[in-house]
Every structure is written in C-alpha cells, then in structure tokens.
C-alpha cells in the first residue's frame, strides 16, 4: 500500500496520510519535530475512531445487545493486535492502560506493593524519564525498598561495566528505558534482561520511545514487563498498554477496584477476574484501544524495520548538519540512536531557541524533557530537542538548520 514501483517506500505519499501536516504555524509551513512528545495521527486512525462512534459505540463485556457485541469484539480484537505487535504469547498478557506512565504505576503499586519488602532493591538507570522514576520513589517510600541507578557515561550510553556490581541478589526488578527520550540512546534490552534474569530479578522495559519506531518482540527481548503509549505511535492519547508475562501478571493482585474487573461481589468481599481484565476496572477507553489497533495496522503497513531505517537516517543527517553550527553540542551517542537529537547552543538558551523557531513554524521542545536528574548529570538546565518520525523529511532538517543559523545571528 505504501510501496512505489521500484519496491521502495513512498514516504511522500505517507506524509499525505497526515492531514495536520498541512497546517501552518505563525504563517509558515508547519515543521513538526516534536514526535517524541506525541506523534501526529494518520487519517486511518481518525477514521477508525469515527467509525467506532458511528457504528459500534456501546459499553463492553456487559450489554446483551448487538452494539455491545460489536464494541466488545472490536475491543478484544485490539488487545490481540497489540499482543501480535509485541510478540506476546497471548492477548491475556496485554493490559490496556492510559499509557506508559499508568502501566509503570500499575507494576509499581500492584506488583511492588505485594512483592517488595524493606531491603529489596529496584534497579533503575540515570537516564529514566520521570515516569519510570517517580512511581518507584513512591513505592520505596511505602515499602522501604531501595532504589539503585546504573550511571550514564559521557557519551550517553549506560555504564554497562558497572552492571555486575549493581545487579546483586537484593535486586527484585530492573526497570529501564529502551530508548532515551533526551539522549536518543538505544539500550541493549536483551543483554540487560539476560543479566537481570541471572540474579533472579524481573525486568520492565519502558518502550515509550521505541514501540512505534522499531520491531519489538517481548519474547526475544526476554523482558517480564513492557510499557508503551499509543499516542507516540500514531494512536490516540489516553491509551497504551502493559505487557506482562502471563505467570507474573497472574500473581499480581488487583490495582483499581470497580466494575468490569470482578467475577462476583457481595457487600463484604469480591472475587476478581483473571488478568488482564482484573486490571481494567470501570469502562475502559474502548475507542482508544480501537484507535491504537488502527495505528498498529497503519505502522505495520509501512513496516517497523523500514521506519527504523528511515528515522535513523534522519537522526544521522540531523547530527551531521547540526555539527556545522557554531557553539553546538549534541548530546548522546554518535552512532546508533533513536529518532531524536538533543542539543545545546552557546548562542541561546533552549527556551529562547524554541520560541524563536516556533515563530518560523518549527515545533521543537526545549527544557528538561522530564529528565531532571539526567540534565543535572550533564550539568545542563535543559536542552533543545528535535524528534522525528517517518513523516519527516531531510528538507525539513535543512530548514531547521537555516532557522537555527538565524537564531545564532539573532541572539549573538
């Protein structure tokens, strides 16, 4: 569907699938370089949402009528699609959540609340987004568990040589990001999971920045949990999922109580459904799940390997061009990296740069990117981040360089 005659992918036609990319900002053609915050949505996803509300909308798992059957079927089919997308063994290993943050909080509160004790350790890294840090701080406060951190090297990679001394038997869980949202570092997930397993620790992968950008197979990676958000991969906001290995997920008590997650209820106590429904109290985000499935279909129609290749080329090209600018420092590894570049310029503070760029239609993010400890580690108050997706072009990067050059002149 997105192939051209030569067998390559027609990226230009793909761009046309995103109506918002025709918008103008401050009178200029929009250049959207903030997909790491949230991606834009293709028409296929918007149509799926509309179709659901026009033809299938009803509550799931409870109505005995035609529409409820359609909604339930579509909702559960979406779960199966997520399972297939992640290479999970079964749809029962997929819990729908509001996104990565909620997925991690579920594990921290429900799994951590039951299994962690005073003296246990949760191993994290210095490059975690606040969403994979704060839930563990809250848990540590509650249980007396300790937090430990894998340091980040100057080149933005994890200090893997420190791993063996950090991964002691007290470590019950190693939670880490797949791709750093401000450095672009791609962590060696498989290796990290293997090392954790060797000391009996479970693993949680924060796949917020990778799920829509590269092939992922949870069984090949060997992780126990994986969390991601739909909105960063062409889906709607407010929907995401937690993958949990069946054996582990089944051992976790309910998290939120309410309708939908119970088998029977008396005034005194309740019996709960099995995973994953045990973790989905109340009416779920049905439309969101259906929109997420449409996003998965859309991404698969292009192919994740092709998307990864495309984004890696853009990031590489951006690094190359940014190096032409005076007083430029790009953070993170120079080789293998995710679809983003974080940088600081001597000429201007990130906030001034992003305000300036915005006036020319270029949307970037400036600040600490929910990475305050990491920024401190690099001695920076913040960075400017340009993040890419498969609908971006080299031409847009060229334009970014022109705008940044103007900014240097303007602020110097």
């Amino acid at each position, binding site marked *: 569907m997105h192939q051209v005659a030569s067998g390559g992918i027609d990226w230009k036609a793909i761009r046309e699938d995103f109506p918002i990319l025709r918008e103008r900002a401050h009178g200029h053609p929009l250049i959207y370089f903030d997909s790491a915050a949230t991606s834009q949505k293709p028409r296929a996803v918007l149509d799926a949402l509309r179709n659901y509300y026009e033809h299938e909308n009803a509550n799931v798992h409870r109505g005995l009528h035609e529409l409820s059957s359609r909604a339930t079927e579509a909702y559960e089919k979406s779960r199966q699609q997520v399972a297939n997308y992640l290479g999970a063994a079964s749809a029962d290993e997929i819990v729908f959540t509001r996104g990565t943050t909620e997925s991690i909080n579920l594990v921290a509160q429900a799994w951590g609340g039951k299994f962690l004790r005073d003296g246990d350790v949760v191993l994290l890294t210095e490059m975690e987004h606040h969403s994979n840090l704060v839930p563990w701080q809250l848990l540590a406060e509650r249980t007396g568990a300790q937090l430990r951190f894998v340091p980040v090297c100057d080149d933005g990679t994890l200090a893997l040589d420190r791993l063996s001394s950090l991964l002691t038997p007290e470590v019950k869980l190693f939670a880490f990001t797949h791709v750093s949202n401000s450095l672009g570092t791609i962590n060696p997930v498989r290796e990290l999971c293997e090392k954790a397993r060797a000391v009996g620790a479970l693993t949680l992968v924060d796949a917020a920045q990778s799920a829509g950008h590269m092939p992922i197979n949870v069984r090949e990676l060997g992780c126990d949990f994986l969390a991601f958000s739909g909105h960063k991969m062409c889906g709607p906001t407010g929907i995401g999922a937690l993958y949990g290995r069946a054996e582990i997920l089944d051992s976790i008590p309910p998290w939120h109580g309410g309708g939908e997650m119970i088998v029977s209820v008396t005034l005194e106590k309740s019996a709960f459904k099995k995973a994953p429904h045990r973790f989905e109290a109340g009416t779920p985000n049905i439309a969101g799940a259906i929109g997420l499935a449409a996003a998965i279909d859309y991404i698969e129609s292009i192919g994740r390997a092709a998307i990864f290749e495309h984004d890696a080329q853009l990031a590489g090209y951006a690094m190359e061009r940014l190096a032409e600018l005076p007083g430029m420092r790009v953070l993170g590894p120079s080789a293998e990296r995710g679809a983003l570049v974080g940088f600081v310029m001597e000429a201007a503070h*990130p*906030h*001034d740069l992003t305000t300036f760029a915005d*006036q020319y239609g270029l949307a970037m993010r400036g600040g600490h990117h929910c990475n305050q400890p990491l920024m401190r580690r690099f001695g920076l*108050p*913040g960075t400017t981040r340009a993040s890419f997706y498969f609908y971006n072009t080299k031409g847009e990067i060229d334009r970014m360089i022109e705008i940044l050059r103007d900014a240097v002149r303007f*602020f110097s």
Partner: protein
Amino acid sequence: MISELEELYQEVILDHSRRPRNFGDLADAAVRVHGDNPACGDEIHLGVKFGTDGGLQDIKFTGHGCAISQASASLMTAKLKGKSRAEATEMLRAFHDLVTDETAEAPKMLGDLRLLQGVRKFPQRVKCAMLAWRAVEQALQQSAGESTISTETEFVTP
C-alpha cells in the same frame, strides 16, 4: 523579520541578557532568596540589603536562565536599587500586570522594564519574566535570612 519576536527580544533586552547588571554575590546581604522555575530549570539567587529606612539599599543576583529571565532580573535590580519597600511592591504589581494583562498600560515608573511588555504575547514565557520578581516578592516579606521560591507556586501580589 518577525515583529512579535523583535518585540519580545528588543535590543535592550538582549543586551541585558548578555551582560546582566548587578550580577554577582552580595556579600553583606540581609536576605537571600533562591528561586527556580522547574518548568525549564532556570535559577536565580537573589541577595538584598536593606537600609536603615527599610528600603532596598543594594540588590544583586546570580544564576542562569533564558534571555528573558536574565534580562528581567538585570533590569529589575537596576530599577529597584535604592527604592523603598512600598515603591518596590508597587513596581512588582505593575510589572506583573505588564507581562500578563493584555489591557494593562505600561506605567512610566517601570522605565526600561516596559520593554518586556512583549512577553504578554508569549504566555509560556511569563514565568521566565517573573522568576526574579517572585524572588524579590519573597525578600520583601522577610527582613533577614534565607528562603526558596518556585514559579510553580501561586503568585500572590503583596
């Protein structure tokens, strides 16, 4: 060139951001306020020395931040030095209105600070402009000692 950008970053503002006035540690400060803007990591460390009449005899700052926060702090210290508490409070209120209220007239007493009026067109940047003022607001509420403030707490006009 774009007019809103030029209005935001006027030459005087860029000049103050590149070469902030009253930048440095005030050794004999009576009050020290450490302020930060958690949204962007900007920091200010403000020192104030009060005269026998209670006025702001001397005022200096250090820290780091964007052009708007640095220029605002620089222009503010230049303006407030030698002013009475009542005058400082009045300017604080006037400056807050200047950068937040679309309809506010720029009062003459603010002098060059009026050049920061362009900030009102950039709502995300109001906190940058207000950081130094939030610090001075805190300083005016105490006669001695050290304290911290953040732009994430509600602005209360004294």
